[in-house]
């Protein structure tokens, strides 16, 4: 995948905490996010060709034009959506103030972790750089050039050495995880070290006495709590011992303590899990899908409810302080959600998922 170069444009000089210009621009961009009727229109299209034609009338036209020379299938649309998302992130980061950049980069730091993990996985199994690079999403602090530098290394230790030389914040976690991996032979140790690093690093970056930081820190805590809840659900289903499950617990949340995590792991059924989570903010979201779970007893149902809960919280930031960091974050999450929904519709067209089922799969339309 070639790095998408943001168009150079003359931007006004924005102060480190000046939200006036960026947020005004973002509100304008937000108005161009697809509405429910637009999604309904896309769902109703006859096939892939018609869907592409409809998408060519939206903001995705320029990204689609770049890939449609390779074909007019779902893979090309998916590629265009990925390019669009990367381009939008670069564009938004181009006009944000320093504080918003700092906060957004912290929340998007999970993509840096994701990209490093992907490179390490590829290197572990000896895949070529070209094969790995198509699976990267350079929307965090590590840009395409940084990722290309890591990709150029020949093996896992080379990637870790390069990260250390560049003094990437993930480097200490990588070294610790790699040391453990050499002892146990289990590569999950490296991935877990990165996940733990992200939770701790993001928490410390947002621990400032400032309303913007405090607001986003709460959301980060909710995100970590959701991850821990889903991990506990999985551990409970797989009858993992509490000791083993605790290895996967991420610190930094504020709703799921280690003891509550233990209760969830020990729960014998969905009723027990919901009962244990009654005092948490996700209770209502989970209770809402309990009947769906009864029909289809899969953790996917609960995870989806928790993801929707979190996305709703992020998108709701648009109605917070109009001169705060909520506006850029709400826009970025709204954009990610839009891309996911278009991808769902595209895939549904490709494999012939019924319209009603497609509507059900869409997220927060």
């Amino acid at each position: 995948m070639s790095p998408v170069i943001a168009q150079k444009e003359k931007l006004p000089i924005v102060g480190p905490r000046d939200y006036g210009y960026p947020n005004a621009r973002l509100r304008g961009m937000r108005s161009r996010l697809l509405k429910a009727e637009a999604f309904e229109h896309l769902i109703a299209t006859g096939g892939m060709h018609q869907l592409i034609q409809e998408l060519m009338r939206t903001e995705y036209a320029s990204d689609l034009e770049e890939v449609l020379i390779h074909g007019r299938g779902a893979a090309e649309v998916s590629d265009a959506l990925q390019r669009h998302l990367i381009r939008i992130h670069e564009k938004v980061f181009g006009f944000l103030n320093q504080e918003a950049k700092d906060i957004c980069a912290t929340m998007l730091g999970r993509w840096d972790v994701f990209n490093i993990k992907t490179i390490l996985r590829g290197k572990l199994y000896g895949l070529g750089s070209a094969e790995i690079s198509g699976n990267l999403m350079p929307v965090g602090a590590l840009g395409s050039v940084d990722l290309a530098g890591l990709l150029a290394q020949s093996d896992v230790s080379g990637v870790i050495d390069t990260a250390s030389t560049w003094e990437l914040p993930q480097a200490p976690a990588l070294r610790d995880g790699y040391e453990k991996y050499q002892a146990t032979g289990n590569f999950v140790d490296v991935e877990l070290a990165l996940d733990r690093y992200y939770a701790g690093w993001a928490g410390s970056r947002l621990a400032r006495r400032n309303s913007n930081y405090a607001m986003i820190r709460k959301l980060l805590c909710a995100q970590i709590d959701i991850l821990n809840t889903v991990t506990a659900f999985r551990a409970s289903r797989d009858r993992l011992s509490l000791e083993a499950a605790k290895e996967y617990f991420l610190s930094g949340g504020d709703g799921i303590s280690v003891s509550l995590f233990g209760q969830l792991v020990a729960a014998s059924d969905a009723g027990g899990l919901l009962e244990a989570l009654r005092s948490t903010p996700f209770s209502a979201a989970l209770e809402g899908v309990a009947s769906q779970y009864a029909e289809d007893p899969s953790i996917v149902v609960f995870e989806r409810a928790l993801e929707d809960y979190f996305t709703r919280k992020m998108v709701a930031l648009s109605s917070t302080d109009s001169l705060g960091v909520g506006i850029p974050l709400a826009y970025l999450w709204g954009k990610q959600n839009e891309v996911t929904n278009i991808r769902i519709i595209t895939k549904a067209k490709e494999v012939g998922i019924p319209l009603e089922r497609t509507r059900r799969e869409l997220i927060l339309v």
Partner: protein
Amino acid sequence: MEEVRPTRAELLERKQQITLAQQGMDLLKQKRDALLMEFMSVMDGTLRLSEQLQRTVVDAQYSLAVAHAVDGPVALRSAALATKGEVTVEMTGTKIMGVSVPVVTKGESPIRTTFTRGYSVTGISTRVDESAERFEKILDVIIEYADIETRLKRLGEEINKTNRRVNALEQVTVPALREQVAYISQTLDERAREDLFRLKKVKKKIEAKKKVQAV
């Protein structure tokens, strides 16, 4: 007809061969019936597994489509990079009604748990997980299916072979032997009649000679 010596010994041998062929034919018919019964019971299992395989493939494809759509191809492919693994199967053999059939048994089950799939669960959605699990189930069913389908194929081949043998005995060997027996019997009868005629002639000549001497 092959060259047949029309002797009494040959006739006895051919009659013995007919008895042997009929006994063999009866045994082969019994074997064929037994193989058919075994074939039908294996067939039931094969159909059941085939349906199960089809259902598992449809489920897996659907969950892959959902994971691809919701999590995106990037997340899906990244997870796939981490889950390299191998499937071990053990190949042995057994005999059903004297027919050698290979037995395919699973080594380690290809179905892994979320925590042993090779990636950290904190970074992978349950949709991707479920998709991986369903494809592992396909592998599991495919191994079972390979075992039963090979058994069915071998039994089918053996039934065909036995059928051909029965037909060959019934339609070719036994009629040919019967024809040979008829030919030998006819030739021996003819020889007996010739001998009788010759003896009568000799007797007549002797009697005629005796009459002349008496006169």
